């Protein structure tokens, strides 16, 4: 049983919105899962070939930018005869709709998957208001 979603080809980033890169390297949009619980927001992104040293995450106002840099992979004395995963960097930008507790952001990388945990800040969490009878 194969999930159709996983068979998506690497999608290239559209350059006009994010400015043209200086280096002649392709930039791909990593596939991501986003889910949230009552108090936290989770982002999982597939970035094969990226380790904890080569990920750059910034949060400016409510714009979250994930950059992943890969090292070019060449094999000595061998010729590339078939290519389905062209090399390149990763970049994806998300606009967060809720206020996030900046100090509590956690980011981990395992087997080429980035996991971002963004705790919601106290003031944006839903509060139950008790109604008193007069």
């Amino acid at each position, binding site marked *: 049983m194969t999930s159709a979603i996983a068979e998506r080809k690497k999608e290239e980033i559209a350059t006009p919105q994010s400015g043209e890169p200086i280096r*002649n390297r392709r930039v791909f949009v990593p596939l991501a899962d986003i889910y949230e619980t009552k108090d936290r927001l989770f982002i999982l992104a597939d970035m094969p*070939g990226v380790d904890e040293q080569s990920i750059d995450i910034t949060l400016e106002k409510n714009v979250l930018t994930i950059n992943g840099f890969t090292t070019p992979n060449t094999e000595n004395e061998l010729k*590339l005869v*078939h290519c389905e995963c062209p090399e390149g960097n990763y970049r994806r930008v998300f606009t967060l709709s809720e206020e996030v507790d900046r100090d509590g952001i956690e980011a981990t990388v395992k087997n080429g998957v980035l996991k971002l945990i963004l705790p919601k800040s106290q003031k944006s969490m839903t509060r139950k208001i008790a109604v008193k009878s007069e």
Partner: protein
Amino acid sequence: MFFQELASPFDSATQMQILQDRLSRLVNNIHESRNTEFPPINVWASEKSIVVVAEVPGIDAEDIDLQVCNQTVTLKTKRHLAEQEEGQTFHRRERGHGQFTRSIELPYAIDAETVNASFSNGMLRIEFTRAAADLPKKITVQAS
């Protein structure tokens, strides 16, 4: 198609392809318009050896099952769903999960004993060397 993949990202053919893909996605409103097999692989080859590199993000090394039979390599992988949290709601679900199988036929017989597979950061690299019996031999012609 192969040459196009390798071409510079700024040449017109590649740009055209990117635009075409985005347009067809917009028009068809489907996400799976560019299907390809999972995991995607790159193959490097020479007369003596072959290197297959596969992108398998989110898969543990023990979930990779690699088998070589004659000239066919079969790669079986399993990707687990991320752990479920209490009361979670999904906003986006692009990463797939489940079992995947892919077979690759190699151009020549390989030595099954010297296969070297390594795995790091979601990239699987498998190195094959050509079987000694299969290597081309040079025959000297003697003048009689």
